[in-house]
């Protein structure tokens, strides 16, 4: 059987036709259908301006941020299988991941590296969007969505920081949540806090930590935020972000 015969046969089966809504032959029609009959691919337009896909225009930074987010989701789920957000065992779980679990250290290293990189690439992406003036009308709103994504990215990194339950984690979060206590109006130590009846047991810091200091409640809260709430929010805002890039049109050169 030649290669051609093989592909002809595969693409003529009912299974292939049930999955793919386009033929296999390299025709413009199939090229178009490949893009818009696939739920993931149709985030893209069927045709793209030649100049828009130049790496020197986008620096590939939005797409790279997306890729890193996916890698983080995958490695994150794997880590979740071995990690329990219990202050008595969290640290040992991480030790197990590093030393006992097969490929555990690889996944943890990739997760950590990708997290740092993602902060960086999102930042560079924002710089690229600024430098090309791509936030100007009609893309103002997508820029705002972008700023929300930047904030969510930082919050994800920050909440993940506590989970290993080592010295770095405890004290970085201690410093960070001290700021919450200093928030104007909402923190005990912040301006106008005392005047508004804010106490150590009802201020912003207490809400974040579920207590007055970083302990079990804080670990659980950060875990849920890091593994469920914030990723879901990122996915929601990313959906709007990509939808908008398509609807507003890409700003690339003519």
């Amino acid at each position: 059987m030649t290669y051609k015969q093989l592909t002809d046969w595969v693409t003529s089966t009912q299974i292939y036709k049930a999955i793919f809504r386009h033929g296999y032959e390299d025709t413009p029609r199939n090229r178009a259908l490949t893009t818009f009959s696939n739920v993931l691919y149709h985030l893209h337009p069927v045709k793209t301006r030649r100049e828009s896909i130049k790496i020197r225009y986008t620096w590939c930074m939005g797409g790279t941020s997306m890729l890193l987010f996916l890698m983080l989701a995958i490695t994150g789920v794997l880590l979740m299988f071995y990690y329990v957000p219990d202050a008595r065992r969290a640290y040992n779980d991480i030790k197990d991941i590093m030393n006992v679990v097969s490929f555990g250290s690889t996944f943890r290293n990739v997760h950590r590296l990708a997290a740092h990189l993602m902060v960086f690439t999102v930042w560079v992406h924002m710089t690229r969007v600024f430098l090309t003036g791509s936030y100007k009308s009609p893309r103002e709103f997508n820029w705002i969505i972008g700023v929300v994504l930047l904030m969510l990215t930082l919050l994800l990194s920050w909440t993940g920081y506590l989970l290993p339950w080592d010295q770095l984690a405890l004290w970085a979060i201690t410093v960070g949540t001290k700021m919450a206590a200093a928030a104007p109006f909402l923190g005990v130590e912040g301006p106008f806090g005392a005047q508004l009846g804010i106490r150590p047991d009802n201020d912003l810091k207490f809400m974040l930590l579920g207590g007055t200091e970083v302990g079990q409640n804080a670990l659980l809260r950060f875990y849920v935020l890091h593994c469920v709430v914030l990723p879901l929010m990122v996915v929601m805002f990313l959906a709007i972000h990509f939808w908008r890039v398509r609807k507003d049109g890409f700003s690339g050169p003519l």
Partner: protein
Amino acid sequence: MADKSFEVFPKNPKKTYGLMELVKGTGPIVNKEPEDTIFTWPNLFYLEFIVALIIIAGILFLSLYVGAPLEEEASRDTTPNPMKAPWYFLGLQEMLVFFDPWIAGVGLPTLILIGLMLIPFLDINKKGKGYYTFSERKFAISSFSFGMGLWMVMIVIGVWFRGLDWNWYWPWENAHLHKPVASGLRDLPVMFSRILGISDFAGKGLADFLVLIYFGLGLLIPAYIFKDFFKKLGVLRYATTMVMFWIMVGIPVKVGLRLVFSIKYVVMTPWFKI
């Protein structure tokens, strides 16, 4: 191109075709020659695929050599010194030296986020959209770069130059040797009342007045010099832009006051101090 083009959706001879409607509006590809587009599949997808492969390979490779850190188990008994936040927050941590926690930890981040969100509504310059240019948007690019530069400098300082007790350590200094506690800081209003021999109240008034002058002149002088800019933006946009801009410039100014004159607070109220 012409000889190679053919109908993507061939006409079905059994059907009739008619133009149903014309709609006014703009779309991403309106007014563009068909020739300057290419099929996304495979051109763009291949590119994305290759870039993704390179990045995944790169990260996997790096992960063999750059391990994620894990320190001693969390414990309240020992406090690490210095206590450093992750690198992307070191800019804010650095600000803690120069501002009260509510400004460094809450006020500035909020202002930065709001400021970023406001950019598209403040910058109404139609030029410079979809390509890189400096000459067509000098003010926008320079102020953005100024902010970014400031942010990066803070991070570099935080990562490499801060040591025990958050003191400044050159790379060649002994990082385990504590530095003497810095000598006392002064407040600008108190300095005024001492030096000029005026009452505390007048000293405060003078300091507040100087801040007002800073923002007042910051609003008036550019409006006078760049009349076109002011007219185009209108009062509200112009004022917001300039207040944001001078707050941003005010940060290194305050840092300078602290470093050169050991000034801690400029504005003092019973509720908060800046």
